[in-house]
């Protein structure tokens, strides 16, 4: 009888093509997502070596990082951004890779597009030259980010050379209090284990609070696994997963669907499976979370105070906190709530899905964005935008004073024209608060969509539960 194994072990074993004597594994890659920033050098490498794409139909390309979120019919103004998108267009044509054009309604952030199309399926291995590939683990797939050399390797061979990872279980039980959601769960986890806490691990999320999340909430949690250092985070698929996937354009159909679901139901860790590390969290104790510094591990409750480096005994950590405080222009010991902000960004692969927009619109409805704040909403894909407009969310946002934009990565990393000016402070639903991430000198506070909307209304970092109490 085989030893009890984890979900990760099962997916890993099912994808082994070869194991070398030194333990290095060659694993098969079922699905490969490609975008314009990390692929040009990979296609160029294929061209130089006279290689082809091994399995174009297992590949899906879309431009997302550089695309403008304003009127797209005018094309891309920045010549370098334009060249990068045009290069992708040439590469997918030359190598026969399926591609969604920038004016296709299916275009969007690559990690929103994959699940939306049913390209992302349980039990598969999924890679992309992008660290937030972890998102797709919400479907019980092994999904992780790779570099451009590895993109080239997958294009040429549909495989990757990898060392097996260790297993970490993060168990979140209990009921989430009102005003607290998936983003708060994952921020709390990163705050607890640290930005290198998951290095070398694949994380499996479990527990009642995870089971109770929608697929979109689960994607938010898995998405930010990389911010805790783990390349992949996954959640065992269940009826919610199958319900989400059924009928999507690339999902299996008919008898193949039945056969797939039968297999997908077997995808879970055995009860006796051993994890190398276990972390537990009580969801009922969570409050809306926020980052204060320039690492995603700098998490405090919105009701909390900014930490004092003098209280930190580790000298490297103390130095990092001092550097963060200076960059963020914050005072140790002060309350984070009430800090005035200049900008709000709602969108990204972390929080650019329809439920995120509903959550933010629920706060924005009937209210006005503070006069001192510039706020924008960037749907994760053309289909998310269309759905939001059908529900009238665009009107709620526009009436409240938010800008309603075209889909793309936008100000999550500011590769297009959407960016913070030096010194501007932003409440953002994205995933990284690194120095300069949203624009040189820009100051990012990571929050949930509801918290970002609340900050836009109040003009300062605020506890969304106070606004909810007014409703």
């Amino acid at each position: 009888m085989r030893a009890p194994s984890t979900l990760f072990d099962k997916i890993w074993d099912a994808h082994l093509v070869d194991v070398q004597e030194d333990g290095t594994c060659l694993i098969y890659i079922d699905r490969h997502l490609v975008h314009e920033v990390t692929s040009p050098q990979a296609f160029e490498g294929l061209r130089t070596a006279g290689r082809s794409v091994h399995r174009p139909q297992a590949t899906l390309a879309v431009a997302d990082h550089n695309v403008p979120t304003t009127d797209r019919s005018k094309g891309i103004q920045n010549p370098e951004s334009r060249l990068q998108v045009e290069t992708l267009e040439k590469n997918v044509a030359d190598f026969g890779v399926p591609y969604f054009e920038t004016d296709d309604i299916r275009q969007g952030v690559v990690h929103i597009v994959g699940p939306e199309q049913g390209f992302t399926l349980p039990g598969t291995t999924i890679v992309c030259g992008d660290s937030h590939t972890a998102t797709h683990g919400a479907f019980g797939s092994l999904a992780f980010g790779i570099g451009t050399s590895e993109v080239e390797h997958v294009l040429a061979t549909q495989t990757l050379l990898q060392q097996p990872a260790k297993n970490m279980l993060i168990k979140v039980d209990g009921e989430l209090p009102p005003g607290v959601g998936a983003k708060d769960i994952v921020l709390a986890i990163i705050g607890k284990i640290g930005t290198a806490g998951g290095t070398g691990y694949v994380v499996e999320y479990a527990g009642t609070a995870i089971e109770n999340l929608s697929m979109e909430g689960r994607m938010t949690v898995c998405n930010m696994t990389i911010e805790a250092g783990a390349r992949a985070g996954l959640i065992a698929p269940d009826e919610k997963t199958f319900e989400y996937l059924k009928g999507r354009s690339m999902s299996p159909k008919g008898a193949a669907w039945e056969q797939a679901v039968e297999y997908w139901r077997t995808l879970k860790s055995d009860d006796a499976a051993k994890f190398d590390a276990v972390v537990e969290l009580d969801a009922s104790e969570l409050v809306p979370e926020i980052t204060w510094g320039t690492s995603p591990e700098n998490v405090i409750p919105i009701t909390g105070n900014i930490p004092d480096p003098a209280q930190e005994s580790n000298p490297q950590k103390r130095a990092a906190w001092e550097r963060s405080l200076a960059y963020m222009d914050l005072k140790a010991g002060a309350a984070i709530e009430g800090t005035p902000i200049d900008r709000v960004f709602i969108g990204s692969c972390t929080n650019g899905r329809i439920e995120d927009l509903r959550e933010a619109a629920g706060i924005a409805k009937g209210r006005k964005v503070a006069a001192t704040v510039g706020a924008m909403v960037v749907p994760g894909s053309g289909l998310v935008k269309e759905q939001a407009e059908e529900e009238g969310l665009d009107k709620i946002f526009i009436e409240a004073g938010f800008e309603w934009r075209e889909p793309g990565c936008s100000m999550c990393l500011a590769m297009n024209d959407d960016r913070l000016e030096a010194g501007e402070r932003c409440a953002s639903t994205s995933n990284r608060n690194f120095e300069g991430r949203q624009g040189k000198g820009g100051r990012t506070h990571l929050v949930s969509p509801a918290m970002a909307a609340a900050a836009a209304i109040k003009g300062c970092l605020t506890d969304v539960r106070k606004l909810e109490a007014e409703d």
Partner: protein
Amino acid sequence: MEKFNKLTGVAAPMPIRNIDTDMIIPKQFLKTIKREGLGKNLFDEMRFLDDGSENPDFVLNKPAYRNASIIVAGENFGCGSSREHAPWALKDFGIQVIISTSFADIFYNNSFKNGMLPIKVDAETLAKLMEDAERGANATLTVDLEAQTIEGPDGGTVHFEIDSFRKHCLLEGLDDIGLTQQKTSKIEAYEEKQKTAQPWLSA
């Protein structure tokens, strides 16, 4: 891929934890479609002042470290994005070895693909090497991959661990894709098996 065997060079100290990929190469430089030329923007936001002039306080701008080929850094170096532009920028600048207590997984992988050597050492060793690196022009280290050793300016030597396959590929300068393509029959056999077992994936 270029071979890596032995390197003697100046080591620059960067005692900062969580040096992330946005610090190493900010996103405005990711718009290139080439691998080369990123060195001039390595650590751009730390290295240059707002007016574009060099920040004299930044380590790689100091005379002793302008030709550094080794960086000794705080824990979790290279965290954040998967951008291979980070190792490309370091390499283009002339950095071939990075020594830290830990690296982000994707950055660690990406470095090897570019003939660079990221070395993990324990906290005590790092503290010693950081001290060595802080000696300015005398901060010369010799890294020997074959022997898996780092020799300090005083002649003291420390041993480091490295996965044997990565070491082999780096010493020989092997091309991963070429190696894998020698296993094409195994890949095709896997695909045949998958067609029967999980036909919905091949449709």
